């Protein structure tokens, strides 16, 4: 550990210490402490994101645990931006109005710290710490304002399942350690193949690890919880757990799959491909007839991680690139859509049924525009980021000879248009009931929506700077 390392760790320190500071600020005996905590949270997250800019171009490994490179810096900034969106959306979000306090902000900051760790490591133990640091605050955040219907249920469901995932993660780690004598992703393969290695244990351990990661990413067949949590959690929290939270895990998985551990993963490629195919089919089919918009987004997430797994199953640098770009696009477009849902939520609860959104796009054309950009991007239409993400996945799949997966991707994408277009059609068709649904957009939510829409379009129209190598 060198003193320069402290500089590189600035985003982590800002967020971690910031979380404590926000908790303290919330109990100060002054008036307006709520606003102070809110302001400080925004400040810390912004600072963490901005701290990545001067660090650009550096590549450094700290103690073999934390890797600072282009990928981690970009995704640290993205995670901070996602958390910022959550905080801005939550501030004026109807169902939890007046309940969002310093504890909420603190938990968001700690979860963000977990994401920072997860996107910047190949070490399994650090990865585990990051995973849990994300999961534990989310137990509480999902059940925020426990009197909401379904809050406790979904919080508990998430807690039990991520506890189970943690158990798989730990057991897998233990077996890998027994088989290879190290938890450093870069050294595992070599050690397992070495004289004292025990490759079978490493393989079993990796399989268990995959189960744990599959739970977090909602990959079929570990996807059951997704729609329930999406329905039960406050939408701003969904915007945290469903976007940057998952993407952090995706980055971790991508690093593992393409890193020195790739020889170990080679045996799992058919399994990854099967999970990808299942995810694309199951997610899109479940979403097809869904009338609840929040659940629909949950199912669409399952499908999207199917697409991402196509890229990872293809492996190689192009698969890695595709997966990371997909993570970015996925975050931007989902925040755009979830942001619209959060912005139009009533005081008593979200609009859930698709029909309750009828005519909103006509009454609030700018909200309609953001939603249209987000949904068309989810569907994968150019020139949005969602399109280029799929294009890169096609590259990766065809390059590695995955013709079947590529064609399946094309066909399931075509199917997905049925429900994505239905959402848009409801939004823009004439309202039947009078008065038409209305919404009041706060400044912060407007900022989030504008940013997410701009990123969704911008990363599509000008994809060049967002291609990670």
């Amino acid at each position: 550990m060198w003193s320069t390392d402290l500089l590189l760790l600035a985003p982590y320190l800002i967020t971690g210490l910031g979380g404590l500071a926000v908790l303290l600020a919330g109990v100060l005996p002054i008036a307006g402490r709520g606003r102070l905590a809110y302001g400080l949270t925004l400040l810390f997250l912004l600072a963490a994101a901005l701290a990545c800019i001067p660090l650009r171009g550096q590549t450094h490994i700290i103690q073999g645990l934390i890797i600072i490179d282009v990928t981690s810096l970009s995704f640290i900034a993205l995670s901070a931006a996602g958390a910022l969106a959550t905080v801005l959306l939550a501030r004026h979000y109807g169902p939890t109005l007046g309940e969002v306090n310093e504890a909420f902000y603190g938990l968001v900051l700690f979860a963000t710290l977990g994401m920072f760790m997860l996107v910047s490591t190949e070490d399994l133990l650090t990865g585990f710490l990051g995973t849990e640091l994300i999961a534990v605050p989310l137990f509480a955040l999902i059940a925020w304002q426990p009197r909401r219907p379904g809050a406790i249920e979904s919080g508990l469901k998430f807690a039990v399942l991520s506890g189970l995932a943690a158990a798989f993660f730990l057991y897998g780690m233990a077996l890998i350690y027994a088989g290879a004598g190290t938890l450093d992703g870069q050294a595992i393969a070599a050690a397992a193949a070495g004289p004292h290695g025990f490759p079978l244990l490493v393989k079993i351990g990796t399989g268990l690890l995959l189960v744990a990661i599959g739970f977090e990413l909602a990959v079929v067949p570990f996807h059951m919880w997704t729609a329930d949590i999406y329905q039960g959690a406050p939408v701003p929290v969904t915007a945290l757990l469903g976007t940057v939270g998952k993407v952090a895990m995706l980055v971790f998985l991508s690093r593992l799959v393409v890193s020195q551990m790739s020889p170990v993963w080679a045996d799992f490629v058919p399994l990854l491909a099967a999970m990808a195919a299942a995810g694309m089919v199951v997610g899109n089919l479940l979403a097809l007839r869904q009338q609840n918009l929040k659940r629909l987004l949950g199912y669409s997430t399952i499908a999207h991680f199917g697409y991402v797994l196509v890229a990872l199953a293809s492996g190689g640098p192009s698969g890695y690139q595709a997966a990371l770009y997909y993570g970015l696009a996925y975050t931007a477009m989902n925040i755009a859509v979830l942001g619209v849902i959060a912005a139009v939520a009533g005081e008593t609860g979200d609009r859930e049924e698709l029909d309750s959104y009828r005519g909103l796009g006509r009454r609030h054309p700018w909200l309609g525009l953001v939603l249209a950009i987000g949904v068309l991007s989810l569907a994968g239409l150019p020139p949005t980021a969602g399109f280029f993400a799929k294009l890169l996945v096609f590259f990766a799949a065809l390059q590695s000879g995955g013709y079947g997966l590529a064609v399946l991707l094309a066909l399931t994408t075509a199917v997905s248009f049925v429900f994505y277009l239905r959402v848009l059609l409801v939004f823009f068709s004439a309202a039947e009931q009078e008065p038409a649904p209305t919404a009041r957009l706060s400044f912060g939510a407007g900022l989030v929506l504008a940013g997410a829409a701009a990123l969704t379009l911008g990363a599509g129209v000008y994809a060049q700077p967002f291609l990670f190598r």
Partner: protein
Amino acid sequence: MLSLLVFLPLIGGFVLWAVLRGRHDAARWLTLGIACVELGLGLALWSQWGPGFFIREQARWIPTIGIHYLLAIDGVSLVLCLLTAVVTLAAILVGWRRIRDWGTFGPLLLAAEGGIMGVLTALDLVLFYVFWEVMIVPIYFLIALRGGPRAAPAAMKFFLLTVAGSLLMLVSLVGLYLVHGQHTGYFTFNYFQLLHTPMTGDLSLWLMLGFLAAFAVKVPMLPLHIWAPDAYCEAEPPVAILLSGAMANVGAYGILRLCLPLFPEGAQAFAPLGMALGAAGVVYAGLLALVQDDMKRVIAYSSISHMGLVVLGLFAWQLQSLTGAVYLLLAHGVAVGGLFAVVACITDRGRPTALDAMGGWFRPMPRLGVLLLLFVLTSVGLPGLANFVGEFLVLSGSVRSDLLWAAVGTAGIVVSVTYFLRMYERSMLGPLKEDLALPDLGARETLLLGALVALVLWLGLYPASFLDPIKGVTAGIADLVSVAPGAIAEHVVH
């Protein structure tokens, strides 16, 4: 200039939506204005016409994966761009009164026009794909949001088939990119560089089929035409004009521009089947048109039937047939625009378009009757009118490639005479069924239909002004066929 042609309607449409939303009248005039400027741009391009791709615009876009911003225009793209501009203008005038909120209709129409212009000029394949998809989204909303009661399912059917086809095109497109990259070590989506990609016959066929899936849906070609009758009939007439007069063309254009030159071997292997499907489409859609009881549906099936003739001409792969196919696109676009405009005139008068409810309408509306007769005669291929030139060239070329399918196609034209005359007889002639006060065409309608008739006469009487730009391009594509058989033979030997 090309960028302006593509982005003027796209950006103009967006600005229109953002600024004039809810201000019906201003939006309507601005839409018309932008469409007129667009036509002016097209005419300006025409004045610069020269051999080959006479204007190119190129810029770096995503260099690390070989994607460029590349627009270029040659004779065929030029005439199709002109047609698109004319058809859009016609659609706007047809919808002038009947459309209630131009604040959303105008932008969608313009966005669709911009997308079509983009498809016709983009020569980087990813850019081509981008415009291809940009084009169909506004069309989906145009059909779904403002048509009849069954418009939403019709729009969904249209969109799903289109998107499934275009995603298969995307797979092929990436496949072609990788094949080219592996052979030359140079990964690019540039059309000109992909032109001479060496590949085996099988691979060429499969990649070609991926592209064809997208184009065949758009054309619409025989087994994939199922979306078309519903979409044409459920959509408002202006949208139907845009769909059949402009959007169908990009399918045929895609076959001509991409399927044939990029995959000469695969396309050659497919050509007999392609001709068969085209000819069968002519007859099949013609027979269906014969039993329809609604004027709109007769026109819809006649449009599909004519596009079958275009497909026949494209896969016959002769200089005449290719030239004739493109020419037929022009003639068909104008004629079908006129026919749907007549339908709009009838529905504007609050009358249904069911043939049973019509009859004897020539007497109250002589002007409409005469103009409809002209469009009908054009569509059945009367010499001196637009379609004749195209149909003659297609058939005379096809005869050299395959006598059987050319003969079947000709039979289809005989069928077209039957169903069109039946439609005309049942709607315009005979006794008046009820005493109706049907006002004849107003000034706007006469002007619009008159202008389309003038175009039909121009296309029919002085074809050289359009044939020259087309021939220069189709000659190059027709030459490919003489190279390919040897290559195919080589493949068979190996």
